[in-house]
């Protein structure tokens, strides 16, 4: 956990869960695994607040607990997961992807699950159906079956997965399958959700009917009904089975989308369709961490192409050959084609690095950078010659890049005493460490953007509160049917310069927010590249 990551996680927790949870989360991130008393002591908060915050963090998967690590009598210890907290940045992208793939229902399901951490299927279906009913016209309501079927589709394509059953939470006789029970009281590694065979099995849920539209006229009755619903929860046959969003699957989807659009940009639409078909065919069969997809024969690809693309077989072969020769993540053509995903990611990351250098230092520095990436090690004289840049400027640019740590210097001595006149000084770029450096820069960027946004909101807090109050007054006046003069009178309570200030504040906040979203795309790419190249290849 680097300092930038901790800072960013702290800001994300503060925005979404409040300052108390932020303090507890930060303490856990900085100090590693800790038990309850230590956390209470270090944060200085009350025991109740710390307990509540830990529950909140665990509900959202940002924290996990281990019991009995040092023997049977030792206290429960808690551990925070930094990468899980950083995912919060990407939530809008997950929700939007669900919308494009499964429509409004899918979007709301994913949104509910992200807001609540994990939920049972019946709860999710009910809540989503209620929300959909509210936005539909009067008189019609959403059927539970429709929402359930969308839920099942999400599970089938692995976008949702079951939460792993709780390990040693203090209950006995729980009838969960694939339970790791008394045999291993101190499990060293947390079981991944995928290690349980029932991970993607949809339970039998008895949930028939339609969602009820809340009646605004009969308030007393409604409240009593709501009380009843809270008091005796109806069981639908899936108690204890909780579902969570499968982030790895979404990441796989994003990666595929990026590759497809890169191919479309470089070659043409048809080749991107071919690539899309290949990736789709290996979606569920290949695990997300595999370096390359399962080999597919050209016949299979031909058969699976969507019917709108009526390209004859020999043209398909030509396209495949073209893709092989192309340096952007090519398929490897023998009798079968498989897709080297790792190489594709490396190429995408390299393109990102090059564009970052170009935007920060200018096109000529970018030319030098690209040169060094391709030619590996070059002396200063060679850099000047290959890049066709005059010596003085090339020297300047190289030293700027060197001072920013984007370019490294490698010394090769001719004599054992490293005399400078008899040593080769070669410039080089190492892609992986540079990617790591830029990833940390991205985290710092997002943290800065968030802090600036919070600062702007705090500066104009009084103005924002006033405008909110006026909006509330306006809404209530309109609901009770007021005359237009009253409305204008209320609107004039905000003076013109204040309105201007509000508008510019809104513009700034929107810009900062959307900048965060964009930086997150770069973060995703760099993270995928780094994790794919540091994995041990089996």
């Amino acid at each position, binding site marked *: 956990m680097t300092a930038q990551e901790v800072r960013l996680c702290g800001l994300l927790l503060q925005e979404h869960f409040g300052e108390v949870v932020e303090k507890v989360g930060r303490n856990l991130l900085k100090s590693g695994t800790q038990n309850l008393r230590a956390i209470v002591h270090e944060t200085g908060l009350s025991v109740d*607040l710390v307990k*509540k915050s*830990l529950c909140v963090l*665990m509900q959202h998967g940002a924290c996990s607990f281990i019991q009995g690590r040092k023997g049977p009598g030792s206290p429960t210890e808690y551990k925070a997961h930094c990468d899980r907290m950083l995912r919060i940045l990407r939530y809008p992208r997950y929700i*939007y992807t669900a919308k494009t793939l499964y429509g409004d229902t899918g979007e709301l399901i994913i949104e509910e699950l992200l807001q609540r951490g994990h939920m049972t299927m019946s709860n999710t279906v009910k809540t989503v159906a209620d929300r959909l009913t509210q936005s539909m016209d009067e008189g019609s309501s959403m059927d539970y079956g429709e929402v359930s079927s969308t839920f099942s589709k999400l599970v089938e394509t692995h976008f949702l997965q079951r939460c792993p059953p709780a390990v040693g939470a203090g209950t006995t006789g729980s009838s969960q399958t694939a339970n790791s029970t008394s045999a291993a009281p101190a499990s060293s590694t947390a079981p991944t959700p995928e290690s349980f065979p029932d991970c993607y099995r949809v339970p039998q849920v008895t949930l028939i009917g339609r969602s009820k539209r809340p009646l605004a006229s009969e308030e007393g009755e409604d409240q009593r009904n709501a009380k009843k619903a809270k008091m005796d929860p109806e069981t639908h046959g899936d108690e204890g089975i909780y579902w969570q969003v499968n982030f790895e699957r979404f990441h796989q989807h994003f990666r595929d989308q990026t590759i497809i659009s890169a191919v479309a940009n470089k070659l043409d639409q048809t080749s991107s369709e071919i690539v899309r078909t290949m990736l789709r065919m290996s979606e569920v069969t290949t695990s997300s961490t595999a370096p390359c997809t399962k080999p597919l024969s050209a016949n299979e690809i031909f058969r699976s192409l969507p019917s709108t693309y009526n390209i004859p077989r020999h043209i398909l072969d030509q396209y495949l050959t073209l893709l092989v020769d192309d340096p952007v993540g090519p398929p490897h053509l023998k009798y079968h084609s498989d897709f080297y995903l790792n190489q594709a990611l490396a190429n995408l990351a390299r393109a990102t690095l090059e564009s970052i250098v170009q935007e920060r230092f200018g096109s000529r520095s970018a030319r030098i950078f690209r040169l060094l990436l391709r030619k590996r090690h070059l002396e200063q004289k060679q850099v000047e010659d290959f890049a066709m840049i005059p010596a003085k400027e090339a020297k300047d640019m190289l030293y700027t890049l060197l001072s920013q740590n984007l370019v490294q210097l490698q010394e090769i001595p001719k004599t054992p005493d490293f005399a400078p006149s008899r040593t080769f000084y070669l410039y080089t770029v190492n892609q992986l460490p540079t990617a790591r450096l830029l990833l940390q820069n991205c985290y710092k960027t997002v943290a800065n953007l968030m802090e600036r946004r919070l600062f702007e909101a705090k500066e104009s807090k009084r103005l924002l509160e006033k405008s909110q109050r006026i909006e509330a007054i306006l809404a209530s006046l309109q609901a009770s049917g007021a005359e237009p003069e009253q409305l204008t009178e209320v609107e004039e309570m905000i003076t013109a310069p204040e309105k201007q200030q509000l508008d510019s504040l809104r513009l700034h906040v*929107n810009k900062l927010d959307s*900048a*965060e*979203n964009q930086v997150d795309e770069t973060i995703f790419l760099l993270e995928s590249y780094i994790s794919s190249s540091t994995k041990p290849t089996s």
Partner: protein
Amino acid sequence: MAGRGRGRRPFGTDPSISRGEGLPPGLQQPTPVFPVMEQKPLPLAGGEEAEYLLALKQDFRGVMKNLPFFIKPAAAQRDVQRYSDKYHSSEQTNSLTDWNLDWRRFPRELQVHIRRRVREGLAFSTMDSSVPVQKKKKKEEEEVLLKLETLEKKEEHEQSSEEEEGGVKKKPEEEEGAEAEEEYDEEELEEETDYIMSYFDNGEEFGGDSDDNMDEAIY
């Protein structure tokens, strides 16, 4: 590690200083807060998708603030103790009771025992979120009624039972009060007051606006 250890370069071979030049002059003041950038950054990506993502993000943040997961810190202590404080402090604890945890997935030690309003030395009742509230209340009511009956029988004999009775009678009263609370809900909570919570606003937050950016004169 260039230049350390065996490969120590003499000072004069620093590549950025040509021979005959002195050291560059030192910085006399801190670097500017917003330095001028040589390369202007590209504009942000616009378009429908970016706007939709932005809206999603802002909505999500807004919703999270109202969920029971958002834990507000304890309100800052005021300078003087006020009568209305005991009506305000109850608003906080409501948030976590809305959230029904499945305690099978969480360690036991994290269960928070909620203290009911204690009257004169009664022990506090622990309330686990998994136990439905009504059943517990009914059980306690039955116990209390039984207790009342036995006490009534002994009433003439013992004089010290007066204290006990007082304590026990207050308990059913509290139960009723608590049940009545549930029905009225919303603002008329806690301590059986007849006033809604805005009655206890002591007007300190009103008119605390600062006078910046006011174009009109103040009389």
